[in-house]
Every structure is written in C-alpha cells, then in structure tokens.
C-alpha cells in the first residue's frame, strides 16, 4: 500500500474534485425537481397523450443502465450530429459541445424520471378527504393545491427526494466517462501515473462516504423539521 500516494496526492486531488461532483449533482437536481414535479402532476391528472408519453419515457430511463445512457448520449449523439453537419453542410463542430452539457442532460433526465414517480406517489398519498374539505370550504383547485395538497405531498416525498439526491451524487462518479474531472476522474488520472489504483479507490470510497454521510444527516434534520405537524405529542 502506497500511503504516501494517499495523503500526498490522493486526498488533494479528491478535494479538487469535490466541487465538480457537487456542481453536476446540484445543477442536475435543480433541473430535475421542477421538471419531475410537472411530469408528476401531468401523470396524476392523467392528462391525455402527455401522461402516456411521460410514462413511456420514465420506463425507458429507469429500465436502462446509466452507463449505457451515458455512452449513447456522449458518444452516439455527436456522431449523429456530425453526420448531419456533413450532410447539410452546417458550419458547426459536432464534437465541440461542452461535456457538462451532456452530463446535465443525462443526469437531470434520469433524476426527473425517478422524481416523477416519487412526486406522483406522494400526491396520491394525500388523503382524498383533504381535497374535498378544501373544495368544500370554498378554495379553488389552485388554492387547494398550494395550501393543502402540495405541502403535504412534499413532506411525504422528502425521504425519497433525499434518497434520490444521494443516488445522484454517487452516480455522478460516472462523469469521468465524459472527460469531466470529478472526484473519481481526478483520482483515476493521478493513479494512472504510478498505477496506484487500489489506493485511489480507497480515497474515493472515503470521500464519498464522508460526503454522503453528511448529506444524509442534513436531510434527516430537514425532514424532521418539515414533518413536525405529523407526530407531535398530545397537548
């Protein structure tokens, strides 16, 4: 075991990669949260055509491995684009697209797919009586959603959102496949110089564990704070 590699190179490279991993995670999540919510409402309301389209897309995204999706998007798409550029004589370099664009695209779509189902089940978990009571006291559909249905749905969705966030954070370790140097990417490069792969992966393991553990604790606090109305002691 090359200890020197671990604390001289490994840890420093890992820390350099942390902002990149977090950047991809947060941007993808920020795109996916509203998008997933809209898709969930479309599915929940059973909007014709759109609802079915979303359902098919979700099945595709959830049913295929992330690695394959990354290959198709990152390797396949530019080739198709390049073919079109040559055929139609566009003045555009198909291989010049920033890899982050591909990363945001793949990860946000993936998370959107999961969050669609998360939000949909959260919306159906709010009792029917809540909507009826809201209508009966004179709230219109929009007001009922804003004041009663959505706040309650969000609370029951929070544990799953946290789960999905952690999954996303871990999956972003695949962005090195798109030449982005996140935690994993930085360490793989550092390791290749002296073939210190075992040491590199141990560092990656520890860094992800510490960050993941911290996030989990943070989310627990948020969750407990948001669901405070649920299980309070009797006054």
């Amino acid at each position, binding site marked *: 075991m090359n200890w020197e590699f671990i604390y001289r190179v490994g840890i420093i490279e890992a820390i350099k990669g942390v902002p990149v991993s977090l950047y991809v995670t947060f941007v993808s999540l920020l795109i996916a949260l509203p998008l997933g919510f809209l898709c969930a409402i479309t599915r929940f309301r059973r909007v014709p055509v759109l609802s079915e389209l979303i359902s098919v897309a979700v099945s595709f995204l959830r049913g295929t491995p992330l690695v394959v999706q990354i290959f198709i998007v990152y390797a396949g798409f530019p080739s198709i684009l390049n073919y079109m550029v040559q055929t139609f004589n566009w003045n555009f370099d198909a291989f010049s697209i920033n890899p982050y664009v591909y990363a945001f695209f793949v990860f946000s779509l993936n998370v959107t797919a999961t969050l669609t189902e998360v939000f949909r089940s959260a919306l159906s978990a709010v009792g029917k009586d809540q909507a009826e009571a809201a209508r009966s006291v004179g709230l219109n559909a929009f007001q009922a959603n804003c004041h009663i249905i959505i706040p309650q749905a969000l609370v029951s969705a929070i544990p799953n959102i946290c789960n999905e966030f952690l999954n996303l954070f871990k999956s972003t370790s695949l962005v090195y496949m798109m030449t982005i140097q996140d935690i994993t990417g930085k360490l793989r490069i550092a390791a290749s110089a002296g073939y210190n792969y075992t040491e590199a992966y141990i560092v990656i393991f520890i860094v992800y564990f510490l960050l993941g553990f911290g996030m989990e604790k943070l989310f627990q606090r948020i969750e407990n704070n948001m669901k405070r*109305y649920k299980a309070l002691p009797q006054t």
Partner: protein
Amino acid sequence: MISVKNIQKSFGHNHVLKGIDFSLNKGDVVVILGPSGSGKTTILRCINFLERAEQGELTIGDIHVNLKHATSKEIHRIRKRSAFVFQNYALFNNKTALQNVMLSLTVARKVPVPEAAGIAKAALNKVGLSDKYDAYPSQLSGGQQQRVGIARAIAISPDVILFDEPTSALDPELIGEVLGVMKQLAHEGVTMIVVTHEMSFARDVATNVIFMDGGVIVEQGTPQAIFDNPKEDRTKQFLKRILLEEQ
C-alpha cells in the same frame, strides 16, 4: 328558504337517490335518519357539490341552482353560503386548529388576516377549544378534531351547516362533547341538516325529522310525529330495531 327538489343520483347501476324533495326555514334543524345505504350522506354531498347529481334543484336564500348544470361560479357561491362537517373530520393535517378555521376566510373570502384570526378564535372559543389554537390535528382527540371541524363551519357564518354523521367515527365517550356543541348551535338558531344515528339528538333537537330508505323519503314530520306516531310500516320497523338496540 332552503329547498331541494327532485335530487336524482346514481353510482353506476346503483340508483342511490330517486327524487328527494324537502325544504327548511331559517333556524330549522333537519335530521335525516335511515338505514345504511339509503342515500342520506349522498344528499348532503350533492348539496355541497362533492358529488354531481344527475338531476335536481337547490335553493339557498336567493341563490337558485341546478344541481346538474351548475357552473363553478355558482358552486362557489353555494359553498360560500353553506358549510360541511365531515364524518372523518377532514381537518387540514398540515395546519393548526386556528389555521384550519382561518383558511376559508383568508384564502377563499379574502378576509384580512387580523380580522380572520379574530373570527376564527371566536369560533374555536365557542366550541370550547380556546386552549388549542396552535395544536395540529394529530395532537387532538377525535372529539376535539370534530369540534375544530364545526368551528371551521361556523366561522364563515353560513346559511346552513351540513353535518355528515359527525359522531360516527368517535369513541362513545367523545360523542357527548360534539353533540353538546351541536345542541348549543341549534339553540342559537343555526340552520342545520344533520345525518346521524343519534336518536336522542333527533328527538330532542330536531325541528323536522326525515326518514329515508332505498333512495326515497319514506316519511317526514316533527320528531314527535315520527318517533311516537310513525305512519309507515318501514319507519316503525326501523325505529323499533334502533330503539331496541339502544336499550
């Protein structure tokens, strides 16, 4: 001043209401009795548009609507003048008692918050919950939750309050506190339509009792007429069974 005419409603092939007519005056307490499945609850739900009737007319004060064709604006006007108390309370779980009562004032009626808070507190005081303003429904007993439900109904000073089996989900020892509040409201002249199995409430508080079975009104009259001198065999049968059970 409140009347319904010829309410018809089916669920699939099940013809639940086969033409219901009745009317009541300001301050009346109408109690609807009948075996399960006779359509009692469906009447109230149709009046509050929680179910769409297939036919029927509703008049509350000067508002006259067709139960089948009412526009959302008309429905909104009816709901502003009537309130519904649910069997399972149906309080907003993410709101405190006070917020539950205030919401229909501040959001649906645009009453300014300080004024709405005043009205809501008065309503909660009236049902004996002056110490529970900030309690969430999960912190309240069934009886307390139902009293918040009643406060939510009286806060909008409706022309009529519809009670859908308000005590059916309660433990026997909690029924009294809810019935007590309802009796008090009746004495204050609040107009109510009550679906219940509480015979003593019907006998003591109702101004008018309706007995229904199989989607039609079998008999209606004063409590004395219905309880002491029922004309229809079906009513006699029902009362005999219920009163026997109560003894």
